[in-house]
């Protein structure tokens, strides 16, 4: 009798645990979807990594353009990850509302060096999405994959929980106020310690495939080169020029693709940057000004 009662208690415990696990995970996922604009169809989609996350003020853009914008950008995502992000968005929203995609590019786009090696893990919150599930199952170790499959809350890191909370609060502001240390950066450049520009054909082909996902649906794609600190461009100037020409060529080869380089006055002022690649709050507002001017033309 006591044995049966114990077994019953254990079963009730595990059922309650699984239910709460799924409930809490579903709640977090809802918040994350709001944060990245995946909960509804958008007029404009922003895709990229931390560079575009920090450089664009989504709220201001929505207000001034009168559009609903999905900003699906995550720190550390590679070109391959961005393909999955694009596919995921299009699988979810099959309607024709989306007209324009802003795809963040920079001089390091064609190389995964310096980005996270297990960036697939960023997509665990969306393991229920088919495209994400098949991507992760190819990349992740089997044990890791199945643990995240069975226990839904394990899919969430601090960064994603924060994103969920920001989503519920409808808060997309760039809170970074710090300014880069220019003298330390000059020393770093003189020691030759800055990240190098590489070109990988695999990344280039993946970028083209991503663009095709959108252009096949008649969606315009802008390859957006948002401001980075000018000394970063000058580190390997020939390679930087080659990469920019490559973007221009991609745009020239496709009617629905443009290339927009916003590296102007903002790039020359180090007070807009928290590091050579990422802008601070002031830099975000300045970059957004330039972006809005371009979009309104």
């Amino acid at each position: 009798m006591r044995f049966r009662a114990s077994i019953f208690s254990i079963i009730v415990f595990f059922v309650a645990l699984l239910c709460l696990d799924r409930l809490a995970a579903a709640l977090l996922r809802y918040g994350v979807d709001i944060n990245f604009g995946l909960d509804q169809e958008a007029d404009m989609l922003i895709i990229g990594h931390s560079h575009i996350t920090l450089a664009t003020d989504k709220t201001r853009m929505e207000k001034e353009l009168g559009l609903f914008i999905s900003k699906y950008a995550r720190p550390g995502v590679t070109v391959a990850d961005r393909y999955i992000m694009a596919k995921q968005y299009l699988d979810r929203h099959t309607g024709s509302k989306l007209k324009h995609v802003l795809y963040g590019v920079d001089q390091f786009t064609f190389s995964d060096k310096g980005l996270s090696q297990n960036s697939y893990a960023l997509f665990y919150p969306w393991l229920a999405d088919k495209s994400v599930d098949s991507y992760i199952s190819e990349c992740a170790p089997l044990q890791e994959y199945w643990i995240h499959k069975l226990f839904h809350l394990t899919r969430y890191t601090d960064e994603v929980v924060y994103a969920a909370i920001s989503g519920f609060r409808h808060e997309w502001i760039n809170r970074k106020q710090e300014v880069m240390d220019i003298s330390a950066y000059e020393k770093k450049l003189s020691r030759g310690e800055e990240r190098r520009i590489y070109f990988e054909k695999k990344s280039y082909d993946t970028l083209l495939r991503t663009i095709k996902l959108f252009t096949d649906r008649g969606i315009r794609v802008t390859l957006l080169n948002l401001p980075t600190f000018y000394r970063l461009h000058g580190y390997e100037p020939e390679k930087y020029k080659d990469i920019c020409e490559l973007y221009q060529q991609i745009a020239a080869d496709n009617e629905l693709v443009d290339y927009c380089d916003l590296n102007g006055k903002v790039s020359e002022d180090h007070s807009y940057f928290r590091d050579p690649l990422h802008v601070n709050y002031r830099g975000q507002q300045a970059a957004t000004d330039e972006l809005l001017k371009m979009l309104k033309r």
Partner: protein
Amino acid sequence: MLFNSWSFIVFWVCVLVLLLSTRNVKVCFQNIILLASSYLFYCFFSSGFLLLLLYVTLLNFYVCRLMGKTSQRRFVCAIGIVGSIVPLLLFKYTVFFITTLDALLSIGISNFAESWVLPVGISFFTFQALSYTIDVYRKKTPIEKSFISFALFVAFFPTILSGPIEKARNLLPQIHHSRLISLDDVCIGCRFFVWGVFKKMVIADRLAQYVDYVYAGVEYASSVTLILAALLYSVQIYCDFSGYSDMALGIGRSLGFRLTQNFNFPYFSTSIKSFWKKWHISLTSWFTEYVYFSLGGNRVSRWRWVINISLVFLLSGIWHGAATGFFIWGGVHALLYLVEHLSGWSQKANNTTLCSSCLGGTIVFVLVSLAWVFFRLPSWDSSLMVLSGMLTRWNAGLNTGPSAFTFAVNCACLLFFILSEILIKNGHLSFETEQAVRKRVFFSIWMIGIVLLIELFCVTSNQFVYFQF
């Protein structure tokens, strides 16, 4: 194959299933299964050093058998002790001596030190084996006739890596008697295990990220940041080690064994003396019984007693490793203990009001945290830099680390942990099966919360701090 890994869970379940399926056979057969499992477990870490484990086992077993047949018991016991201690000294302190020698004489042998590997758990299983040998010498424990039982006592997988250091008179009788693995014991064991996982992977590992971040840039950290890092390191090391102990207790309980409690809420202590009765109980008890009492305990002159206490604390310090930080840590605790005793505070601490208990507890926690600074940092210089920084850098504010949100989550988890500790200490939460329905429901809700927090906030792939000993 650490305890907090899925491969260990599979291993544990397999051992449990094997024991359950053989519960009707003789206990010696069950002990063979446990011994084989323990050796297999040890091989996952260092199969080469299994020979060392066997050596320590065989030496102490046959030394004690010989003690039963000879009148030269003292001499034979000494052989056992020296023979067991020599490999421990060799593996643990060779690197320290080589690097010190190289620094003094510049003979270029420090490369040799880089390839030196420390056998996992050597400090623990050596001390565990020695406790048996010394108890046999003192006639506190009968001589073990079964090699299987003794080998299991030394190599028992829940305790071999990081304790608790079991006394033969506690564990050997349990090994001899048949054990009925009940569903109740398995459930209680799992509860201890889950709580241990929470302490280790949520509290200890999260705090470690912050503490490591602060100490990596110690020359720039503000006073308030250094003080916070020191206090959080106290919690980190407690949760790391007691979390592991809870896991060991849980695993042992699920297999039908009652292992020694290793921590008894030490940070609620109102005196240093009380702290040492509640912190790493098995090691303190080992040094008390086999070193302190052997030196005469407190039945000696005052000055001799001071030397005895100092020696015990210093040995306890260097047991953790051959670094000046551990030695200084032991010395600081010796000083605190002696000052407290000579001032009569430890007696006063027992008869105080709630207010003065809280004050006493706070003072003890702060003093212990300051001592941990020497334990944590690799050198005397960096420890002094931290301590002087705590007093002199009040111009800058608190550094919350790379992510303010993560810092906030850490604070919330820490608050939950402290509340849970208070509830456990006061009996409102009990790992034993409660009869009262309300308490059972409350405990179940709390346990569900613990599991969900582990899922959401755990940090993976951090080895236990005490593992290195």
